[in-house]
Every structure is written in C-alpha cells, then in structure tokens.
C-alpha cells in the first residue's frame, strides 16, 4: 500500500510536467512522466521542419523561466545555456527607419526626447507592477471565502504588496491593471512605431487587441518574469531536455510515445491511467500537465465531475488566435536597414496601434488578419546547430489567426502562409527567392501537434478573471482538482502560460501537502 501511495503519474512531459516531476522525485516520490509525443517538451521543443533545418516549433523566446525553479533545480549547471540574452526588440518600419528598444532606452525612428523620458518612467512603473505579479507566480493561490489561515496570509501578502507601492503608484496600478494597453500607450507616448511595438506585450499569444481590456494585465504578466528575452542554445527544446535530464537525475522515469487515453477511477478517487495501447499504470496520484479541458473532459470524463464544476471548465476561454510560421532560408535574409547583428534581435511588425487593432478586428468575425502582426526571430544567426552552414531558419509568431476560422483552415492555411511571406517581403524584399521550405502552424495544427484544446498556447486565456484563484476555475485553482488524487500542473493553472515552470513547481508543493476528502467508500 505504501508503495502505491508513493507512485505518481504525470500526464504530459511539457516543461511544467518535467519541473513537477523533478520536485516530486526529489521529495522521494516514484514519478513516471508519460509523454504522448516522441520527445519531451510539449510546446517547448526544437524539431526539424525541413531536412537540416530545426526550429523552436512552439514557444520561440524565453523570458519568463522561473528563477526559483532555475536555482532549485540547478538548470544552468545542468547545461542550460543561451545563444542570445537580453535581446533588443526592433520595431520594423517599411522604410528602414527602425526603432530599437533595449530595456528603457530607445534608438532610431527619429524618437523624441519626450518619448525617451516617458519610456524610462513607463518601464519603471510597469516593472514595479510586474513585480507584484512576479511575487504571486510561485505561490499556491490563496482561496477566497475560507477561514483557512494560509489563505488569509496569502491574500494579505498581496494586499500588502499593492499597498507598499505607495500612494501614487498604487493608485496607478489599480487604475490600469484591468484596462487596455491602447489607452496607456496613448497617454504616455508619441511615436507610432514605439506604441505599436509595446502594444504587442499586451496581446501576443492572446485573444485580445490593444483596445481589449485585460491587455495591460497581459503585458504585466509577460513582464513578470523580470528578465530579458533570450534564446536557449539549441532552441527551446534545450530547456525541456535539461529539465528532463534533471528529473531523471532525481529518479523520475520519463516515457515518450506513451499517450494517456484516460484517467482511471476507483470510487471517488483516481487509481491510475490507461494508455492508448491498453496498458494500465496504477497510481494514487495523477498530475496532469494537459490543459484543463483535455484533462477533465477527454481524459477523466465530464460525468465524473459535479455539474457546476464541469460547466465552469467548459466555459474557460481558450481559443487560440495565433499562427506560427517557420521558414527555411538558403542565406541570410536582407531586411531593409538592418545589419546582421541587428537581424538577430527580436523583430516586430506592428507599425502602429491602430494597425494592431485592425489586425485583431478580423479575428472577431472568424477571419485572419489581412495585415497580420508578427514577432520574428532568426535564431540560426547565433546558433549553428539549427541550420546547415550558411543557411538560416526564421521563426515568427503571427497574429491574428482564429482557431475557428469561418472559411475553415484546410485551404486558407496556404493563403495565409503566402500573405505572411508577402508581409515579410515588404521588409525583406528578397526573402521569397531565399525560401527553401515553409511551414505554418494554425491554431488547429497547434492543437493537434501539442495536444492543446483550442490551440491556445497558454492553456486558457490570460485574464484577470482566469488568473490566480480563478485559474483555471475555482475549486481547482490550488492544483488539486475536485477529484481525489487528481492534480493539475500545466499552464492552465496559476500563473499561466509562457515557459515558466512555476505551475509545475507550485503543483508539486500542492501534491506533497494534499489530503483527500474522505467518502464512505474511499
């Protein structure tokens, strides 16, 4: 019995599942991670998309990795290294007069001194506010309305954090946290290129336009890693591989190509999982790195849940609105006005705020953007393991591309691919002639490849009503689900998406401190 109690199955070897596995294995648990794909990593992988060309197929920049996780799991001494760090963001202008944003300093695009001063103040308060979210990230969210002491302490800590901002900053924080980034940027800046580029902080990976409320919150969440943009050496897969290695060192077993088809129940608690080939693995604790809809509906079954909870899970907003473009190029692409050094920056196509908002408009009606926004990285410039010598890979996050495209994705995918290449060609006229291979992942492809319901990168929209004790929904926001023995550890839980690992770490702590609700038959 003790042995069974000690066994833990983790469904999904994404970065959070692997982090969770490390912590649980470290605590002496017998952990088995079951990954459906042929390699670990979930949406943080490096994979070949054309012979000799490799790319970070899901997330392509690292800027939120939990520093506590890094330290506690000694990821850097385990071999995690970076080909680029503290990347400059370059807002591209068609005429080549680009704007470089490095921290709070601005260069180019005839930027005014007023904007330069405003940028220092903007970074100051945004980083300060992001710090509040940062301190929430690696805590188990407190519950509201309980008499539990640790819940009260958790709530009080956050309230104190906000109060400690001082009168003026607290007022500003409370004013802007729930509103839209369009207004905030209009209040602070003049330069359209700057405003367009900064607005992406609030909308990348989401279902929001700059004028949608919650976009300031998303920007703060994105900044809450309190670190610069980086590209791991070997692509994002390197992060996952390092995590897997650490997990194994701590004694976890990791199985790939092991697709869990359902979670098994014994009375009112989980008893293990069944794989697609029929194999059953017994465990009194099952931790799911899959998104909440997949976990509760596809793997557990809605009928094993109480109806109010099932309704909440069904109502989680999680429809992807992002496509991912991968290009294999037979040379260094030539972007107007960028030298090769600058080319390795994080390149942004978001010429002004209204451009971004217009791009979003289409998606509200089930259409993709006629003129999309893009976040581009050419990681092969600093990492020769990704492409053959002299050749390069370009990776771009492209918005907006709704999961439920009115016209359907089967034919429109090729059309959008062409449109995005046309868009790039406006900045890098020769790029078409350098094309060796192209790949576009629509939200439907993302759903299929990474097994994320709705193809939403964050396993659920990031928004104040889906954050902290509301993520994914009340009664599972402390990682323990309403089903005894079943836990969540993925991005669908607090603190959400982005390659952080915080959810995995928090979940491990929740698993280790958990108690069942005992029924008459348990």
């Amino acid at each position, binding site marked *: 019995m003790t042995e069974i109690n000690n066994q833990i199955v983790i469904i999904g070897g994404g970065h959070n599942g692997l982090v969770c596995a490390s912590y649980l294995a470290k605590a002496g648990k017998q952990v088995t991670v079951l990954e459906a794909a042929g390699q670990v990593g979930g949406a943080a992988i490096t994979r070949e998309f054309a012979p000799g060309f490799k790319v970070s197929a899901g997330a392509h920049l690292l800027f939120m990795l939990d520093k506590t996780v890094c330290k506690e799991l000694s990821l850097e001494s385990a071999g995690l290294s970076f080909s680029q760090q503290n990347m400059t963001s370059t807002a591209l202008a068609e005429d080549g007069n680009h704007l470089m944003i490095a921290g709070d300093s601005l260069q180019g695009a005839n930027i005014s001194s007023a904007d330069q001063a405003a940028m220092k103040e903007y970074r100051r308060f945004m980083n300060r506010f992001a710090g509040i979210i940062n301190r929430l990230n690696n805590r188990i969210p407190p519950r509201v309305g309980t008499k539990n002491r640790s819940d009260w302490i958790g709530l009080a800590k956050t309230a104190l954090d906000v109060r400690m901002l001082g009168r003026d900053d607290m007022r500003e924080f409370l004013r802007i946290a729930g509103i839209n980034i369009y207004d905030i940027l209009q209040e602070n800046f003049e330069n359209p290129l700057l405003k367009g580029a900064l607005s992406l902080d609030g909308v990348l990976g989401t279902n929001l336009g700059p004028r949608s409320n919650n976009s300031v919150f998303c920007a703060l969440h994105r900044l809450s890693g309190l670190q610069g943009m980086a590209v791991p050496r070997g692509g994002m897969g390197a992060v996952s591989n390092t995590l897997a290695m650490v997990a194994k060192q701590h004694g976890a077993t990791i199985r790939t190509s092991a697709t869990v088809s359902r979670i098994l*129940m014994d*009375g*009112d608690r989980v008893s293990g999982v069944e794989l697609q080939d029929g194999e059953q693995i017994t465990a009194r604790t099952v931790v799911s790195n899959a998104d909440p809809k997949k976990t509760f*509906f596809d793997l557990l*079954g*809605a*009928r*094993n*849940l*109480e*109806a*109010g*909870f*099932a*309704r909440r899970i*069904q109502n989680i907003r999680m429809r992807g609105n992002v496509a991912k473009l991968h290009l294999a190029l037979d040379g260094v692409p030539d972007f107007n006005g960028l030298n090769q050094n600058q080319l390795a920056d994080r390149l942004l196509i978001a010429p002004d705020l209204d451009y971004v908002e217009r791009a979003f408009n289409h998606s509200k009606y089930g259409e993709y953007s006629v003129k999309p926004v893009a976040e581009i990285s050419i990681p092969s410039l600093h990492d020769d393991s990704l492409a053959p010598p002299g050749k390069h890979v370009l990776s771009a996050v492209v918005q907006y591309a709704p999961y439920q495209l009115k016209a359907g994705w089967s034919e429109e995918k090729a059309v959008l691919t062409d449109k995005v290449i046309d868009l790039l060609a406006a900045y890098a006229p020769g790029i078409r002639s350098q094309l060796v291979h192209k790949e576009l992942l629509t939200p439907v492809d993302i759903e299929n490849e990474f097994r994320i319901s709705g193809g939403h990168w964050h396993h659920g929209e990031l928004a104040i009503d889906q954050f902290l004790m509301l993520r994914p929904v009340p*009664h599972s926001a402390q990682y323990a689900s*309403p089903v005894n023995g079943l836990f969540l550890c993925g991005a669908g839980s607090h603190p959400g998406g982005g390659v952080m690992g915080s959810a995995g770490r928090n979940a491990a702590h929740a698993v280790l401190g958990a108690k069942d*609700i*005992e*029924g*008459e*038959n348990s």
Partner: protein
Amino acid sequence: MSQINQDDKVKPIDFSTKAHYLTKAFRSPFYSRQEPLNHLKEWGRWADYLSPHAYTCSGIEYFAARNACTVFDLTPMTKYHISGKDALPFLNRLVTRDVSKIKPGRVGYCCWCDDAGQVIDDGTIFHLSENTYRLCSQERHMDWLMTNTLGFDVLLSEETHNVAALALQGPTSCATLKRMGLDGIENMKLFDIRHFNFEDTQLMVSRTGFTGYLGYELWIDPEHAEVLWDRLFEAGNLHGIKPMGDEALQMLRVEAGFIQAAHDFMPANATIRTGHTRSPFELGLGWLVDFKKPVFNGRRALLEEKKRGHRYNLVKLDIDGNKPGCDSYVFTKNKKRVGTVTSATWSPSAKASVALASLEAPHGKPGEELLVEIYYQKELKWSRVMAKARVVKEVFFDPPRKRQTPPADF
C-alpha cells in the same frame, strides 16, 4: 460531448389554441370543467397556468380530501422527460439518492443540489420504462438539467404542457377509480405506476400525492383531459368527490410534513444571498443522500458538511393555541431567537396549530420546548402571542390507509 436533443416524440404545442396572449397565462386542459365549478371566480397563478386557490371554500375542500376524495389539477407542475442510454447515470449524478433502486414502474422521491451541496429543488422521479424517466418538480430547471447533460448521452425535453395531470386524493380515491373501471387499482402499492386503457388512449396512474393520505395521480394526453375529468366526477359522485384548490393543498401538505421549494427552502440556484440556502441534511432529507455513489452534485461539499456539522434543522412544531404561526420567529425559552416558521396551518385533523420551522443547529431535537411569536389580527386590531411549541418527530397526520395495499375500502 453530448448533444442536447429535443425528443421528437413530443408534439409541439399549438399555442394558438391557448389564448395565453390574452390572459398572460395558460388555461389548463381542464379549464372548461374547472371554470363552472370555481364559484369564487378567483384564479391564482402556478407557473404559467391559471390555477384556482379554492373552488368554493378551502375548509370544505380540506375535509373532502381527508374524508372523501378531491381532484387537484397538477398540470402546471414542471415535468421533464429524460431518456437515452445514459438516462440512469445522468439522473444518478444529478440527484443525491441512488436512482438505480427505483425500478421500472416505480416512483422515487428525490432532491438535487448544486456543487456546494445546497438544495436546488426536490421532486419525484418516475421510472416509466427502461431508460425512460419523468422528473417532476415545483421549479423550472431546464438550464441546470442542460448543464448536467455534458458528457452524457441523454434526450431531455420539457413535457409540462404535453401531459395533463390530476391528483385524486383521499380515502375514497381507490373506490372511485375502481368504479371508473380501473381494474386492479387496489393492488397498486405506494409509489407504483400502472397504465390503463381508457377512452381509446392510455391513462397512466401512479400511487403518489402531496397530501400524505391514500391517493393517486392520473396522467393523460391533454386531448383526453376533459373526458377524464368527466368520468372521474361521474364515478366519484357517490364517493363525495370534490375539486380542490391550492389553499386546501397547503393545509394538507403541512399536516403531512411535506416541504415545498420557495416555502421551506430557497432553491439554491435562485438564491443570491449566501447562507440563505439549505443542504439536504438541513431539510431533514439526509436519508436521500447516498455517499456510496462515487459522484453526484454536491457530494464533496456534503461530505465536508457531515464532518463539520450542519447549520440548521428543519423541524415539525406543535404549537399551543389555535393561531397558525405563519412567518413567525422561533425563540428558545430564554427568548433567544433560533429560527423561523417556514410553513404553518391549523390542522383540523390533529386539532392543533402545526408548523414546519427552520432552526439553527443544534436546536430542533424532538421534545425541545420553544416559543413561537405569532402576530394575528382581529378586525384590524393586531395582537401578539408568544405561544409555547414543541418539536415533534412524527408527522401530524399519518393514517395506516396511506400505505395499505389493498387500501381499506370506505
């Protein structure tokens, strides 16, 4: 995921014949027979229907129900048709009791909760045939039932308007139905369902009711409503049959100790204020909660409640004097306020002022002496009495005939 389908066997309602746009309420399929009998010409409203408070005098109707038999129009009661492969697991997750124990041809009383273990409503499940059920309740629940279909292969439809129903209650009810030609009616046990051929259609009879006495409920298609009424009154003529309205029913059900949504508890999904709802344990319905089922709505919360203890007790009070203690506060002998009366009536059969009351736990143990603060009016002059009351265990009216099979003739 499950699809919610309308059962295509259910006929659409022809609203053009209902004239509801003139009256703002439906007329029952029995209206043509009720209308001339309704001497008071007063109509109340029950859900979407006109429903008489009383036809002549609620007192007379009450005594008819206890000494002869009465006909009460049940048509407005909410009725849902639930069928399909997963009908049983669907119901088992919905309600707190084990529905698999309700065999085909049987009726079971039940209640259902939200996730917080608070009662949404109580009602009856009719197991019509294998995988086919009817759920009857006071309140409307389509939204909650549809929410509950997620993950289940069930057909769910509301059939309130498609079934005409009468409750025939009282000691002569069996004799009346026998005279009407329902052979073998006397062999029906409490909670049995039988089908009879009647006027070229099928008449469904269940030995159920809301009066706590011998009684039956009759279910038929609305086209045969009038002929059913006529045949029933013809057969019941010598058995003292009378039509009965809602006022008499309230007296009868309180005597019988039956609770009613929105009277004795607030339906949880229609309640805004926290703490104003009740769990099954707090309504004396703990016997309906079966924790052996691995999952049902409210299970986790109710397990916690069992551990923590519940907040309220719903009790029956026997109050001194003859003033019904409607809407009264209940005090301990030391004048500490511990609850309120939720339903009350003068019970002519028990010759007592009786009430249902919700008391803060741990108050409400049988035998506990309490005070009920009753305000009453005589010709516009108000008076107040602190009436002594005792918590009683047994219901106020519980004759053996209620359960006898065959029931004693009258």
